[in-house]
């Protein structure tokens, strides 16, 4: 769906998405790297389970939330991809380890 512009060159970075190794250009955001790799489903909504992907690409819409290195609700469009980063689909709401007793 997306093609890289021919004038962008640079070092490659390897990361994983749901365990699958992918490559990106150094300096890509996680969202750009995933879109360039053909990934459009980043998360499912907590309410209906509908699929979601990046919309605004500038930090406003919060549609591109993924889990990065085990932490949920990360904005893929605002996070620069790094070597060895483990990115995962976020299914529904993020989970927390802190218990809140009612």
């Amino acid at each position, binding site marked *: 769906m997306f093609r890289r512009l021919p004038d962008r060159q640079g070092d490659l970075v390897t990361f994983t998405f749901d365990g699958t190794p992918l490559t990106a250009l150094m300096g890509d955001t996680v969202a750009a790297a995933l879109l360039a790799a053909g990934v459009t489903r980043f998360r499912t909504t907590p309410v209906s389970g509908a699929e979601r992907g990046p919309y605004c690409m500038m930090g406003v819409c*919060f549609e591109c939330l993924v889990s990065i290195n085990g932490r949920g*609700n990360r904005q893929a469009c605002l996070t620069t991809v790094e070597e060895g980063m483990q990115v995962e689909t976020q299914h529904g709401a993020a989970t927390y*380890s*802190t218990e809140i007793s009612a």
Partner: protein
Amino acid sequence: MTDRDVLVVGGGLLGASIAWGLARLGLRVVVLDEGDTAFRAARANFGLVWVQGKGLGKLEYSNWTQASAALWPSLSDELKRETGIDPGFSQPGGFSIRLTELELQRGVDAMNTLQGQPNIARYPYEILNHRETKARLPAIGPTVAGSIYSPLDGHANPLRLYRAFHAALHKMGAAYLPDHRVERISHQDGAFTVEGPWGTMSAGRIVLAAGIGNTRLAPMVGLNVPLVPSRGQIIVTEKTMPFLHHPVGNIRQVDEGGVIIGESKEATMDHHRPRTPVTAVLADRAMRMFPIIGELNVVRIWAAFRIITPDGFPIYEQSRTCRGAFAVACHSGVTLAANHAFTIAGHIAQGEIPASLSTFSSERFDVSAAA
């Protein structure tokens, strides 16, 4: 100048609330505002409608604050009815969380002194230890010493409140003019003429609600608004599940799920960017109060300047030399919004700030003549 009665200089929360109050009394109002790069306290409002702890050293300020909190339900209802915008007001009671026994004792002492002032309208509050606080705020951390609770405290959504005031102003036909910085004000033959790069405009009355700009503008019409530098920082987290159902003095979870953190005061006007050491303290204290906050992603951090007079209390005053010119300056624009929209606007419409509010005149800052 035949088609307007009053110029309001400043379109922030204070200017907008007074302008709306004047418009709903039938006055024809023009609001002159600066542009997007102006210093705006309105973009850093915490959103508390807060009573507890206020008025130490000036009981009238406690009574004034209590009066506004009592008027807030009417303000919220009227804005909702007029504009369809819900300012998100609720008054579930608020907590000041104390991390150490020393902090708790200081809070208790302050409340005792405050409520010991003669003629103060006393209001209920409770001192709660850790266990009692935990029973009402289950998300608190294990090291919290306790809290002070007052049922009068509440909060609102300041962005929607601001939007509602402006929508209501527009609906009433009041003019809002952005990018109309006022450079000069002159007073001649009972008319005030304001001037800027955009042109000039006149009216028989003028209200200075220009925040920090009031210091510069007030002397042009025989008024005085001394301010001291006070910078505050705010941290906003991502939206998350509801875990905090009461406002806390320095932390609240807004109705849309995000958490706002802010309690810093720096005596500086130096720069506009947040300073990391201050952000770190804010975050550390917030995480000790509510550990869940440590798991949330921060969405944004910013700083803004408060409108603080040398004693921290507001100024409401009419010029003695230029009748019809009023200055208003205050820090708690959300808490006091109901007073400003209803009470202060009413006084300005009547043309007189009553003696009961003379304690908020800027004359309290004048150096008295040597005996």
